């Protein structure tokens, strides 16, 4: 193995210009594919995660629909609630992605990935996409349950597909929020506490369970800056046909997701230092 004279090394150069964009997209796809592959090896998670939304619909929804205390503007409470539960279950899936990335850091996986030519944005986007895919499975589950319970949600496949896209966007934002927090606190236990601390406030400060009109003014302000409210609005418009500004809702979700990817990517390197 000794070195005799000069060795000719052909170095690979990083792509430049437009080729960089193509490579970035391919790497995002690679991370997304990995998350799908993980899901195919263990599908039990998809079923166990369905328990909580099912309980919300079956117990909370059924009980509150009998009380008739929440003015939902002529929409049956269970129908009003179902899109909120879809958004909530997607939130619960996504908000713990930061813990997963800290786990990857502790296991050395993150360091190994960070020295590949894949930029942090590709990794973050891939994870966000995975959160979206897992959440889409929740959409399917809640829709099936809602149909079985006789809740009148749309059967239009295009609207259902659009609702899935909305859920992917919302999940991407909340996964990025979680990974941003991971980059800030860098500790799994602390992050678990923060995740639990912010999940319910995010849920209650949205229109998932009740309309914005019945909220006190301070809560309305919080709801107006809470992306979960925009996700629920878009889902209600798509699945129930309630009037709304879906374009605004989707724009807010896209902007939130893009900002989330940028901030989480900027903080990712802090995790491995």
């Amino acid at each position, binding site marked *: 193995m000794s070195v005799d004279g000069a060795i000719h090394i052909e170095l690979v150069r990083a792509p430049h210009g437009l080729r960089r964009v193509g490579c970035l997209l*391919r790497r995002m796809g690679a991370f997304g594919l990995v998350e799908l592959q993980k899901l195919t090896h263990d599908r039990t998670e998809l079923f166990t995660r369905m328990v909580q939304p099912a309980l919300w619909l079956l117990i909370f929804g059924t009980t509150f629909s009998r009380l008739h205390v929440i003015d939902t503007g002529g929409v049956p409470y269970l129908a009003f609630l179902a899109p909120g539960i879809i958004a909530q279950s997607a939130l619960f899936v996504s908000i713990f992605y930061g813990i997963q990335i800290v786990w990857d850091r*502790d296991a050395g996986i993150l360091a190994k990935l960070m020295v590949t*030519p894949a930029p942090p944005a590709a990794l973050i986007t891939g994870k966000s996409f995975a959160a979206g895919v897992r959440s889409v499975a929740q959409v399917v589950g809640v829709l099936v349950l809602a149909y079985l319970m006789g809740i009148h949600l749309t059967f239009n496949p295009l609207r259902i597909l659009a609702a899935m896209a909305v859920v992917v966007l919302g999940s991407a934002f909340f996964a990025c929020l979680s990974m941003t927090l991971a980059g800030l606190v860098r500790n799994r236990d602390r992050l678990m506490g923060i995740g639990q601390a912010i999940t319910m406030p995010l849920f209650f400060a949205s229109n998932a369970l009740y309309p914005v009109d019945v909220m006190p003014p301070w809560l309305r302000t919080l709801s107006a800056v809470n992306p979960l409210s925009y996700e629920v609005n878009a889902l209600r418009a798509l699945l129930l046909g309630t009037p709304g500004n879906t374009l605004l809702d989707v724009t807010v979700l896209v902007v939130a997701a893009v900002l989330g990817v940028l901030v989480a990517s900027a903080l990712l390197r802090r995790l491995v230092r």
Partner: protein
Amino acid sequence: MTDPAIDCSHLTHRYGEFTAVDDLNLTVQAGETMGLLGPNGAGKTSVVRVLTTLTPVQDGTVRIFGLDARRDTMDIRHNIGYVPQQLSIEAALTGRQNVDLFARLYDVPRKQRRARVDEALDAMQLFDVADALAGTYSGGMVRRLELAQALVNRPALLLLDEPTVGLDPIARDGVWSQVADMQQEYGMTVLLTTHYMEEADALCDRVALMHHGVLQTVGTPTELKAGLVSEAAPEPSLEDVFRHYAGSDLSEDGTRRGLKEIRSSRRVARRVG
């Protein structure tokens, strides 16, 4: 003339007040196998992390095949393979999927990808178990899988940070024989850190010994051993050289780092089963 594979000049790296690497000057020629030795806390891992571009260069200059580690990080990443200290694989993916991810991240062309993944798995004698979940692999197999990941892009420089720590002697021999085979086949430069002196003696063209962040000596194992010949020790081993330069003291910091590494390894061991 070919640029050196690694050229560190006055490299200094600090963690707050603690100087982990102190004014390191080290050159590794292309095609060479260099061992970086030293007790826990000597600064070996910090050097490797800078060389991989995982940690930015704070003071001094680092060039990899003439590429500046501050400026040309992406170019460098395209030409290196890295195996970190921890056993770091995705246990929920198969061996093939683990390697395929790295082939994608390193832009191995789609037409060649399958063949290159198979080649890397075959070289590490994992082809027959490639479709089993990596979580079912033994420690030695996981290490070989990591080597397959690091080699799938046929790197010009392979950085191995204590790749045989925690492995039994047979698994260690297996790992080193695969590295030696690949090194001979592709003419890679290899920089490895290890605590096992007999391995460094057998595998390395030269070794560099660090202690408290300072480079103590560099030379071929034969040269270093010859420097210690005395009447009392007519045939010193590399371990004697290690003890001569590192002494038997373990600083408080070194002990703390050692315990941290053990805890980290145990966490990973639990994760990968």
